[in-house]
């Protein structure tokens, strides 16, 4: 360690925070351009309708309105559809069926809030007035809203019978069915994974600028992955060629998945900027966030777990219908398949697993990745059915899990659902969590609660996740439209400080701090001398952004590789400066050393020499700037145990989460307090799903929970103090030994809380969220 206070493993204070706590953060809506105009979208009030006519004449007369653009205008300009970035192969080997998704609807609208025109005006107010004045003749059609009956309902998209985008499977069906047939016991469960609405605190926004003189486009937008945004906008939508389009994602106020995707709004804004010849700005209001941000989860599942006499899992069969919404969002197809079915082995040695997933279209907002993306759904299915099996068999839920866990000696472990786990110690996390919650003391606590008219329950979830989707070639074979590597670049400047470029994007994760710690540690440069640049395609060469808890394991590893290249070149320069052989020069703590003579030169001196090559190797290029693309060899597999304890008020049905323990194995940790914060956040969202949050549509496809008054997100007083701890098995295949921590909290906690609620109530299931009225109805015997 070059510096114990700022290097790897230190809870360095976040350098982002000074600007956030003084109000100097720069989010998209904080940016303005001279001559800027404002866009407002005209959105469908119906879940499903045909557009017969759009009359913009009144709207054009609204003072301040400059231009009104419709889907037809966009089509006339030759803009392409919003693509789905992952081609899922169906059971029969055919490609999934994708409905065209024009950024602005032309003939049909398929969900409430779908944009079909935009109004550009001198002010936000005028744009909104204009949008209200657009007169549209709709012919209403019957909407398909109910997921369970979507296949039997009217066909939403031409050429897509049964509203089915795909029928996908993974695993060995005959073997699994045979295992279940021979099982001593089968536990069956029907589960619903409730729809969630991401609601990042910063609403999505876009500011498009077009320079007529050069033909350059610049799009400032709320994105988790600006390079991917640019790629999609240039390669698929074809707004502008890639080399003429710069995408900047400045400070971004939370994403949780919802800002991965390329949406209609920023597409329209950058296109409109060229049409209007002035910058165009759009900022969503909260209603638009509710209606038009991609939602999360929304599965209906039947699961069967077979166990032998001793309690060993012999087979797991899962049948899921996943709601994809009205269109396939960028990764909407992959979330309920490759990020879901592959995780169903969990931490267990279940030898036979089979999963089939029907992805269906409905007249609701598109559904895509939301914190955890597929993995919380998989964990929910598996950990609910395992807990239920323990109850049915009268087994201790911790013991039943323990006897089925993959053991440290089993790694690398090939699961029946494609993944190969590299390392883990699942019992270590379980033991630590049992201790933290005081499992031994639970029976006494349960009795104490009973005496106060409260029912107490405890619930477990031993989860696994797969992060840092990889490797690229495999992902592409499985249908991914892009590679899944990350770029990192380190430029040592002549004065010896460093500018670091990463293709990852930070919107709450603290990369500006963590990545500086890595480079400082790697190169022995003071932490304060390392600057991290991200979120700008004009500055960072390429990148794939931040999602799937990948930034550290993939993006951080790329920086380690770039650091190795810096050191390698530095050794040659240092050898020249010390008149020694390269082989004799070693590198440690920012110094190139010649052991034999006790001579050394600092990396700063080497950097200076690289740019002012007065004495320099003849065959070496000047400069000291290196970049690397890191393509992971495998996923990383964070895992852990979450245990929840709840108390239920028997009179009202109110559920009080009294304790939540999370013991996670994220591999090596760079900044413990940042990790702790990430876990807290994930837990809050996981608890929110279990107890509070539900995106509800009525039969007409109107979003009933369209405001924060009706969609309940956790507030400070909804949550207990979390008990958070870690165990460590370093990832075996990346240079940091890191696995990723961003999503874990949201993956394990939901199942743990629901297992606790059902334990307290003594029922098999209860649909999420466990609201007080639902619980009350169970308590009174319904």
């Amino acid at each position: 360690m070059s510096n114990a206070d700022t290097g790897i493993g230190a809870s360095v204070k976040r350098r982002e925070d000074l600007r956030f706590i003084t109000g100097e953060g720069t989010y998209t809506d904080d940016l303005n351009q001279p001559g800027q105009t404002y866009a407002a979208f005209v959105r469908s009030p119906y879940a499903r309708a045909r557009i017969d006519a759009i009359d913009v004449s009144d709207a054009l007369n609204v003072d301040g309105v400059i231009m009104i653009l419709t889907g037809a205008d966009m089509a006339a300009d030759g803009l392409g559809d919003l693509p789905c970035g992952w081609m899922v192969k169906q059971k029969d080997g055919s490609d999934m069926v994708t409905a065209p998704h024009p950024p602005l609807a032309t003939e049909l609208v398929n969900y409430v809030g779908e944009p079909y025109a935009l109004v550009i005006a001198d002010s936000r107010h005028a744009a909104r007035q204009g949008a209200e004045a657009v007169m549209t003749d709709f012919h209403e059609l019957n909407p398909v809203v109910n997921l369970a009956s979507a296949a039997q309902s009217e066909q939403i998209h031409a050429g897509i019978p049964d509203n089915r985008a795909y029928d996908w499977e993974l695993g060995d069906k005959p073997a699994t069915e045979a295992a279940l047939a021979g099982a001593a016991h089968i536990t069956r469960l029907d589960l619903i994974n409730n729809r969630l609405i991401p609601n990042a605190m910063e609403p999505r926004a876009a500011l498009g600028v077009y320079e007529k003189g050069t033909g350059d486009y610049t799009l400032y937008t709320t994105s988790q992955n600006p390079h991917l945004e640019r790629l999609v906008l240039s390669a698929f939508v074809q707004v502008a060629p890639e080399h003429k389009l710069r995408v900047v994602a400045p400070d971004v106020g939370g994403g949780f998945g919802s800002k991965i995707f390329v949406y209609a709004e920023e597409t329209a804004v950058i296109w409109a900027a060229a049409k209007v010849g002035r910058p165009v700005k759009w900022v969503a209001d909260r209603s638009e966030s509710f209606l038009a941000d991609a939602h999360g989860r929304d599965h209906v599942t039947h699961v069967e777990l077979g166990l032998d006499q001793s309690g060993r899992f012999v087979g797991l069969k899962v049948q899921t219908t996943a709601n994809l919404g009205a269109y396939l969002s960028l990764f909407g197809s992959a979330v309920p398949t490759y990020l879901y079915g592959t995780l169903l082995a969990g931490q267990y040695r279940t030898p036979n697993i089979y999963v089939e997933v029907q992805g269906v279209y409905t007249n609701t907002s598109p559904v895509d990745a939301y914190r955890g993306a597929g993995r919380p759904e998989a964990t929910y299915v598996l950990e609910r059915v395992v807990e239920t099996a323990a109850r049915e068999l009268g087994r201790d839920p911790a013991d039943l899990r323990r006897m089925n866990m993959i053991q440290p000696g089993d790694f690398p472990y090939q699961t029946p659902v494609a993944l190969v786990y590299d390392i883990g110690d699942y019992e270590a996390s379980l033991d630590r969590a049992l201790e933290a919650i005081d499992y031994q003391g639970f029976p006494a606590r349960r009795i104490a609660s009973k005496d106060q008219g409260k029912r107490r329950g405890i619930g477990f979830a031993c989860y696994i996740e797969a992060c840092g989707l990889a490797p690229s070639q495999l992902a592409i074979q499985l249908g991914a439209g892009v590679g899944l590597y990350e770029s990192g670049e380190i430029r040592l400047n002549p004065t010896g400080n460093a500018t670091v470029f990463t293709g990852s994007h930070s919107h709450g994760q603290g990369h500006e701090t963590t990545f500086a710690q890595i480079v400082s540690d790697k190169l022995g440069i003071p932490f304060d001398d390392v600057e991290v640049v991200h979120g700008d395609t004009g500055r960072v060469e390429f990148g794939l952004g931040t999602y799937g808890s990948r930034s550290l394991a993939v993006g951080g590893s790329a920086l380690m590789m770039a650091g190795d290249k810096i050191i390698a070149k530095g050794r040659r320069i240092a050898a020249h400066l010390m008149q020694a052989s390269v082989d004799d020069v070693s590198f440690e703590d920012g110094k190139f050393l010649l052991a034999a003579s006790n001579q050394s030169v600092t990396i700063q001196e080497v950097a200076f020499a690289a740019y002012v090559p007065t004495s320099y190797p003849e065959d070496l290029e000047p400069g000291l700037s290196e970049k690397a693309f890191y393509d992971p060899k495998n996923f990383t597999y964070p895992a852990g145990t979450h245990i929840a304890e709840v108390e239920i008020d028997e009179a009202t049905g109110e559920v009080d989460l009294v304790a939540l323990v999370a013991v996670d194995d994220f591999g090596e940790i760079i900044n413990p307090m940042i990790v702790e914060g990430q876990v807290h956040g994930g837990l809050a969202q996981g608890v929110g799903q279990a107890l509070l949050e539900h995106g509800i549509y009525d039969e007409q496809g109107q979003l009933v929970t369209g405001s924060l008054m009706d969609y309940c997100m956790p507030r400070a007083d909804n949550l207990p103090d979390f008990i958070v701890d870690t165990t460590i098995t370093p990832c075996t295949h990346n240079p940091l030994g890191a696995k990723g921590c961003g999503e874990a909290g949201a993956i394990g906690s939901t199942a743990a809380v629901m297992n606790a609620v059902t334990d307290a109530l003594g029922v098999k299931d209860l649909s999420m969220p466990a609201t007080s009225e639902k619980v009350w109805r169970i308590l009174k015997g319904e």
Partner: protein
Amino acid sequence: MYPFKYHRPTSLEEAASLYNGSDDPVYLSGGMTLIPTMKQRLAAPADVIDLSGIESLTGISVKGDKLTIGAFTTHAAVMASADVRKHIPVLAYLAAQIGDAQVRNRGTIGGSVANSDPSADYPAAIVSLGTTIHCQNRSIDGTEFFKDLFETALEPGEIITSIEFSMPTRAAYRKFPNPASRYAVVGVLVADFGGSIRVGVTGAGPCACRASGMEKVLNDNLKPAAIDAVEVPDAGFNSDLHASAEYRAHLVKVMAKRAVAAMLEG
């Protein structure tokens, strides 16, 4: 928001005259409901008459056995008032349960009462604490004030100037909050006026009301368990995403029992 004219009168007379002179006026009190409503373009008044400049509308005073709160007094001021805490502590408690700190700093008792939101907290106190609603030119009995969902006995142009409360011997309020909005799914205030029990319920029906059946039972037997014998039919109760009418009816009893228990515990 649609454009409107903004007025900040300094007297009630000026406010009334502005009101009468407008085609489509609205009074602005705290604005916790009105401003969001206008932003969503669900209301588009021509004239917004801000009452915050009328000093006589703010303040808390005690005269004899009555406590009077000016209509423009914020929830936070009620919560913190030494007079309220001394004479009608249940009112300070109730005010502390409203929304969150920002809402309590802005929302006013008059605005809340005049709005007659079915899930607001104050109405439970208005119907049960022997109140008189004072307007510019008349006074209205608190039990006669709420008429229906967002409907009150106020005539167009009338402004609540103050609310006069009787002082119960003892009282307690219990509320089951909506987890998202923090409004009352159900709120029950039980007050003992020298042996005479009054029960005010908010959240359950279209507007706050007294629960005479409960009062009768409690007058005979002032114990939480006495509530068990009361039938609370859910006919006409609110039913929404957060609670069915049936569940609300159940919660009325639970909150009533808890309020009685709290009152007896002092």
